[in-house]
C-alpha cells in the first residue's frame, strides 16, 4: 500500500523514490471505515473537484476526536468522543509536552493502559496547528502551509500522515475510544492523492 502512495508522490513530481516495478493494489477503505475508496475518488476527472473530494475524506480523519483532541484551539487539550476539555486541567507548555511538574508523560505512558491513551511521543500539536473550531477549508489551508504545518513540504506531509508514530495512535486508541476512520496507510495515500491533484481546498 505504501508503494502506491509513493507512486502518487512521484506523479506529483517527487524524484527521490524509485517507482514500483508493478502497480500496487489500489487503496480501498473498508466500507465500515466511513471513507470513500480512493479508486472512486480518482475517477473524478477535474483536478480541483477531485482534490476537494479527496480532502473531504482526509477531513473525516483530521476532524475525528482521536486527531482533533490534540489540535485544540487553546493551550488545553480535549478528550473523549465529545471533545470536552481535558481533565485534569493540563496545558501545552513550552514544547507541547506539558509544564514542569505536570507533563503529558505523567499520565500517558508509552502504550495504552486501561483507559489512558499512551504513545512514546504523546504531546500536543503546536498552536499553529490548531484545528478545533475551524472549517474544513481553513484546516486544509493550514495543512498545506509550511508556516503552519511544522515546516512540512509535500513529501514530508505524506510521510507524516502515513508513518508518524504519534499519528498512528489515531487508529490504536484504548478499547473505550473509537479509532479514526480507515487506517494510517489509507490516510497517507489520501493525502498523497490530494497533493497530486493540486492540493485544492474546500471553501473556507
Amino acid at each position: 500500500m505504501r508503494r502506491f502512495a509513493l507512486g502518487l508522490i512521484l506523479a506529483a513530481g517527487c524524484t527521490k523514490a524509485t517507482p514500483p516495478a508493478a502497480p500496487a493494489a489500489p487503496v480501498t477503505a473498508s466500507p465500515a471505515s466511513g471513507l470513500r475508496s480512493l479508486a472512486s475518488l480518482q475517477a473524478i476527472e477535474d483536478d480541483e473537484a477531485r482534490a476537494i473530494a479527496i480532502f473531504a475524506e482526509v477531513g473525516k480523519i483530521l476532524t475525528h476526536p482521536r486527531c482533533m483532541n490534540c489540535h485544540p484551539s487553546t493551550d488545553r487539550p480535549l478528550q473523549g468522543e465529545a471533545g470536552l476539555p481535558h481533565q485534569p486541567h493540563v496545558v501545552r507548555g513550552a514544547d507541547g509536552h506539558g509544564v514542569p511538574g505536570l507533563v503529558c508523560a505523567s499520565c500517558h505512558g508509552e502504550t495504552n493502559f486501561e483507559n489512558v491513551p499512551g504513545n512514546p511521543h504523546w504531546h500536543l500539536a503546536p498552536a499553529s496547528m490548531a484545528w478545533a473550531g475551524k472549517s474544513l477549508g481553513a484546516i486544509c489551508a493550514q495543512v498545506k502551509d509550511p508556516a503552519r504545518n511544522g515546516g512540512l513540504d509535500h513529501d514530508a506531509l505524506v510521510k507524516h500522515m502515513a508513518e508518524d508514530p504519534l499519528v498512528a495512535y489515531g487508529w490504536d486508541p484504548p478499547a473505550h475510544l473509537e479509532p479514526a476512520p480507515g487506517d494510517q496507510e489509507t490516510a497517507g495515500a489520501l493525502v498523497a492523492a490530494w497533493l497530486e491533484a493540486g492540493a485544492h481546498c474546500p471553501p473556507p
Partner: protein
Amino acid sequence: MKLSINGQAREVDVDEDTPLLWVLRDHLGMTGTKYGCGVAQCGACTVHVDGVPRRACVTPVGSVAERDVVTIEGLAGAEADAVRTAWEAIDVPQCGYCQAGQIMTAVALLKEVAKPNDDQIDQAMAGNICRCATYVRIRRAIHSAAGDDS
C-alpha cells in the same frame, strides 16, 4: 522482575502489566504512595520515574523495570528538604491523604523551576486534587520552599 525503588534494587514476582502502585503498596509494603482514583485523575499516587512525576496507578510495572523510581519514602535532596520544612511550618495537610502526591509534584516542580510564580504552581499542581481544598496553603508552602515568602 527487577526494579530500582529509592535507589535500592528490589525484585518482585508480578505480571508486567500490574500497576506500579499495586506493586509498591501490596508487594513491597510501601504504603506512602496512596491509591486515590485509580485512573490518573487525582494525583495521589504520584511517584518520580527518572525524575519525572508519574501516576503509579496507570503505570505498568514492566515499563519502569530499567528506570529509577522514587516514592515519598525515598524523596531526598535540597528541594525535598525545603518542601518538608515548608509543609510543616505552614501546616499544610488537613486529612493528609493527598499530601504525598502533592509533595512529589511540588518537589518535581522546584527541581525544574527554582522560584515558580503562582501560574506555574497552579499549572504544575493542577493534576493533584485535594478533597480538603488545601490549595492555598499548598501554593504558599511551595513559595516558602522556594525561599519566596512575600
